[in-house]
């Protein structure tokens, strides 16, 4: 086993794998980091985002991101509720990074047509969701520079896992 692994390491393509090209990496790389690394060029604000949202997102998330009771969770509201007896986890109240909104919308939304939105569309959708949550203004432009600078209300709410946190005794 070790010898075989050594052969893989020494011979590079001894087992057939090929070198990836710059072009195919660029085509497939969708990773976005909280620093903004990986965000594409583009821009949008909540004014444009409102129309886009109504057309592409509201069928599930409702016109103002309030969701649909018992069917689709809300994207809006709940800020300040996390330490109460009835916490409401939404993009606005719970998500720590605005870059995650871009990443998720770009890779997975709209649910039935993922990756059909342009970069400008995704920035617009992000701006509208952030605006609905009162985190940015309606005309504030979101782009690859400004989006990572948005401080989400729950940015500092995530702490490292403390396992084992529950210590049972015999």
């Amino acid at each position, binding site marked *: 086993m070790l010898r075989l692994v050594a052969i893989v390491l020494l011979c590079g393509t001894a087992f*057939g794998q090929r070198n990836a090209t710059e072009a195919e990496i660029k085509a497939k790389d969708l990773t976005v980091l909280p620093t903004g690394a990986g965000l594409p060029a583009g821009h949008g604000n909540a004014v444009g985002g409102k129309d886009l949202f109504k057309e592409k997102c509201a069928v599930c998330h409702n016109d103002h991101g309030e969701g649909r009771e018992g069917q689709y969770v809300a994207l809006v509201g709940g800020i300040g509720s996390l330490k109460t007896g009835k916490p409401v986890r939404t993009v606005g109240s719970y998500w720590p990074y605005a870059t995650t909104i871009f990443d998720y919308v770009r*890779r997975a939304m709209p649910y039935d047509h993922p990756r059909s939105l342009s970069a400008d569309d995704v920035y617009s959708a992000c701006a509208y969701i952030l605006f609905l949550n009162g985190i940015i203004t309606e005309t504030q432009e979101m782009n690859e520079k400004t989006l990572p600078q948005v401080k989400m209300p729950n940015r500092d709410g995530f*702490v490292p896992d403390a396992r084992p946190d529950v210590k049972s005794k015999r």
Partner: protein
Amino acid sequence: MKEIRQNRRRFLALGAGLATLSACKKETSEIGAPVRAYGDRSPLEKAARDVRESITPGTSSTRTPLQDLDGIITPSSLHFERHHSGVPNIDGAKHEILVHGLVEQPLVFTMDDLQRLPSVSRIYFIECAGNSGAELAGNPQADAQKSTGLLSCSEWTGVPLSTLLKAARLKPEGKWIVAEGADACLMARSIPIEKALDDVLVAYGQNGEPVRPEQGYPVRLVVPGWEGNINVKWLHRIHVVDQPSMTRDETSHYTDLMPDGTAQKFTFVMEAKSVITRPSGGQKLTAGPGVYEIRGLAWSGRGKIQRVEVSTDNGQTWTDAELQSPILPMAVTRFRLPWQWSGKAATLQSRCTDETGYLQPTIDELQAVRGTHSQYHCNGIKVWSVKEDGSISHA
């Protein structure tokens, strides 16, 4: 003559794979069904996954019928499912895995390339982080499938992820990987490089066959002992990065909200847990008072199960159960204990200890620390209530 025709009809029916219930007998002098290319269980056997309805079926889940299974391997057909945008239909002959980012040489592996690499087979459980979430929220479920069925255990075959990463020659600043699936939502999770280089498998085999489509065909990650969601299915991209991506499924989902309003992130390990599967909720002690064998499963994301204790008297006294070999790290372990049922109402519960000395807590102990809104990573003790008529449900 008539009998011969009937037999012939029955023979043809069986040959066509149409074995019917009327064809099943205690014993027979009739010639049985001929060979067939791909086997199936007796038509009398009905154990099935519990399908959860969802307004978007592609985001739904199914649960393994733990109470109907023996041994430690979950039949592939009964492995639990949880998808985020359905089961993609992927052609393994065209599938590739891209390894890129903080590496000296970005590489592309086809399935043929993976098959040529040194392979390993390991038995590991996979448990959804949301398993038993209802129990934690104070809504105990009526049977083992509903309470604990987002757990399955398979023999996985594949290539250590470290082999792929080392072939691409990691740069020292590479501290995390982002693993991405090829399903419609391209579900992605970040994994620390230490784990990625330790025991993570790039698995193409499940219980001796190619991984099932709903388990990630043609290839998935198996991340031993860690929450199910991070075992990325339909794996097609591994991106070496210097920090976690903070994807939706490691922020919005699979994080535990504590009573003080903070949320715990990167809770990867599924802590030690056990459940009695027989006798358990939904079953009935139809033979009346007498000896029954209590059986169940125990597992820990931190290694091997060291001990399982069973109580039949509301937790007042505990008796060590026998552990059945093999006892493997990050796999389920079978336990058993004979029990004399008096015919009176009783409660049945198990608690396990893993090789680190960690003792499985009660639901109350979990709630005292984590409250009732943390949703995920519930490993509390499951208690079954036996009534005088022998019927069993949750306590």
